[in-house]
């Protein structure tokens, strides 16, 4: 029996505002408990919510980034349930009329068995709506009691919901990663998963391949790492298939993933948890977004990754692969653009260095590109020395290592270490003469028609010059000598 897994995601992204969505409290992370919880946030009687303009602008930015409909009129609703970290007894959210409507995001799914080159897929976004976060419960504070910290209550969230369009854990993770980069790229979310700024709920169901009707889904809550998401979906899929093959049925449920066991387990179902009795919040008027509001945001939107990728391919003649790698994050893209601008030479050389040497060092040291000790201007000055033949590409790697280690700028290191390329043909000729004299056997081989011997001689000459001889000149002069 062939089964197919069907996955949809709901992602809570914390918006990068200074204050809460409905009050003037700070949303800075890590403050002492309840020091950022105002009368509105703790739901004292007689208070009224006032909507934060920046949160609305973040929603518009997101809508533009996924090519979605942005509602000219959207409505806030109350989602009613009781929990101690929700002081009002309802969460202000959006229900029937969300701020962002249908959109889409194209993902690239990496290579896997049966898909050597990976593939692209467009994931449909159903909607995105503004809402407030709840507070936090702290257990074990006092015997038989739970502690409540309401600093997080009222933090602005944009909940982004997809259609059930994904068909594997790999696709779900590729979507989540792409979305994670996008919200950071457009500057609406800091993407910090440890601090809970980007949390995913994953709806998983299985059905027989070819069936049209969706199976009963279970929702895996609050995944805050891509690795856990992959593991949780794989486990959940196996569990559902085994349950059905054993003649069982799937009950709709909310499940939690336990990273220690790698298993998903149904939460003790909160009684009637899904009857939220939504209704329009009488404390808030409809939110109006005009065409000119949208135009104003368009004017300040950064170039989107897909557009930038296309531009790199056209303007700099980069391959699709390179352009994708250089637009994988805003940080990498900005670094590459700054390097290219300061270098002024062939962008392909800059691209190779950013994706090669720089990426390798960052990877090795587990650093983000924003923490690179070699700045784009510093890298550009190194590239200029390659372009003007002061140093060879190989020596440049050595200089780069020294720059990374903080030994100074490119020119200083080249000078100090005496790495300047030897271009004086007299000097190169004398090196070649020595090499030819010392390697008579190789010369014989070459003359007998063994082309390989030529490369070996070049290697010997480069070695004799400690890598400093200009390789092109070595080639040319060696050819001349051997021909004579």
């Amino acid at each position, binding site marked *: 029996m062939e089964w197919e897994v069907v996955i949809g995601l709901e992602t809570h992204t914390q918006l990068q505002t200074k*204050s809460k969505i409905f009050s003037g409290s700070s949303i800075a992370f890590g403050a002492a408990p309840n020091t950022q919880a105002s009368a509105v946030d703790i739901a004292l009687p007689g208070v009224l919510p*006032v909507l934060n303009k920046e949160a609305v602008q973040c929603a518009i930015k997101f809508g533009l980034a996924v090519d979605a409909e942005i509602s000219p009129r959207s409505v806030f609703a109350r989602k009613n349930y009781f929990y101690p970290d929700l002081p009002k007894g309802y969460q202000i959210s959006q229900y029937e009329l969300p701020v962002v409507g249908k959109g889409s995001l194209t993902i690239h799914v990496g290579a896997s068995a049966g898909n050597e080159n990976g593939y692209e897929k467009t994931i449909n976004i159903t909607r995105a709506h503004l809402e407030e976060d709840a507070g936090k419960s702290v257990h074990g504070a006092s015997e038989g009691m*739970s502690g409540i910290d309401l600093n997080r209550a009222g933090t602005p969230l944009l909940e982004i919901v997809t259609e059930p369009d994904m068909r594997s854990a790999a696709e779900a993770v590729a979507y989540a990663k792409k979305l994670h980069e996008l919200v950071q790229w457009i500057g609406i979310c800091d993407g910090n998963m440890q601090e809970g700024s980007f949390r995913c709920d994953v709806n998983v169901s299985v059905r027989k391949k070819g069936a049209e009707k969706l199976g009963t889904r279970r929702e895996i809550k609050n995944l805050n790492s891509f690795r856990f998401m992959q593991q949780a979906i794989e486990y959940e899929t196996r569990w559902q298939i085994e349950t059905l093959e054993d003649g069982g049925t799937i009950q709709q449920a909310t499940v939690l993933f336990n990273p220690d066991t790698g298993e998903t387990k149904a*939460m003790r179902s909160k009684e009637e948890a899904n009857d939220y009795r939504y209704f329009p919040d009488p404390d808030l*008027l409809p939110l*109006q977004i005009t065409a000119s509001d949208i135009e104003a945001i368009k004017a300040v939107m950064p170039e989107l990754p897909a557009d930038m990728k296309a531009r790199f391919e056209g303007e700099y003649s980069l391959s699709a692969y390179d352009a994708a790698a250089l637009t994988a994050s805003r940080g990498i893209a900005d670094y590459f653009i700054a390097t290219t601008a300061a270098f002024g030479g062939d962008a392909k050389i800059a691209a190779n260095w950013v994706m090669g040497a720089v990426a390798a060092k960052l990877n090795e040291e587990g650093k983000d590109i924003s923490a690179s000790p070699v700045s784009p201007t510093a890298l550009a000055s190194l590239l200029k020395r390659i372009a003007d033949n002061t140093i060879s590409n190989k020596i440049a790697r050595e200089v780069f290592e020294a720059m990374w280690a903080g030994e100074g700028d490119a020119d200083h290191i080249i000078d100090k270490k005496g790495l300047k390329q030897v271009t004086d043909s007299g000097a190169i000729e004398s090196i070649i003469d020595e090499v030819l004299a010392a390697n008579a056997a190789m010369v014989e081989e070459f003359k007998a028609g063994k082309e390989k011997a030529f490369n070996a001689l070049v290697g010997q000459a480069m070695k004799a010059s400690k890598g400093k001889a200009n390789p092109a000149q070595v080639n040319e002069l060696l050819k001349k000598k051997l021909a004579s």
Partner: protein
Amino acid sequence: MSLTTADVKRMAHLARIEVSDDDAEATLKKLSGILKLIEQMQSVDTTGIQPMSHSQDLVQRLREDVVTETNQRESFQAIAPAVEDGLYLVPKVIE
């Protein structure tokens, strides 16, 4: 649409309101009356009329994104039944 006592009990539970069996009967009568009124309203032809989500025909005013609140934990917690280390204490919640 007709309500039952069980519906009333369920709604009361969702709203965390204690309703005795006697009160449930009385509430059922009142709620059924309200539903009848709604039925009557629903028979009105509203074709072409945009649904209203607020009684005032205005749009939401927006607030600039500025932190204006200061820490008032001490005064808020002075009226809380139980606090510890800056946290509000509530009977233990189990997930």
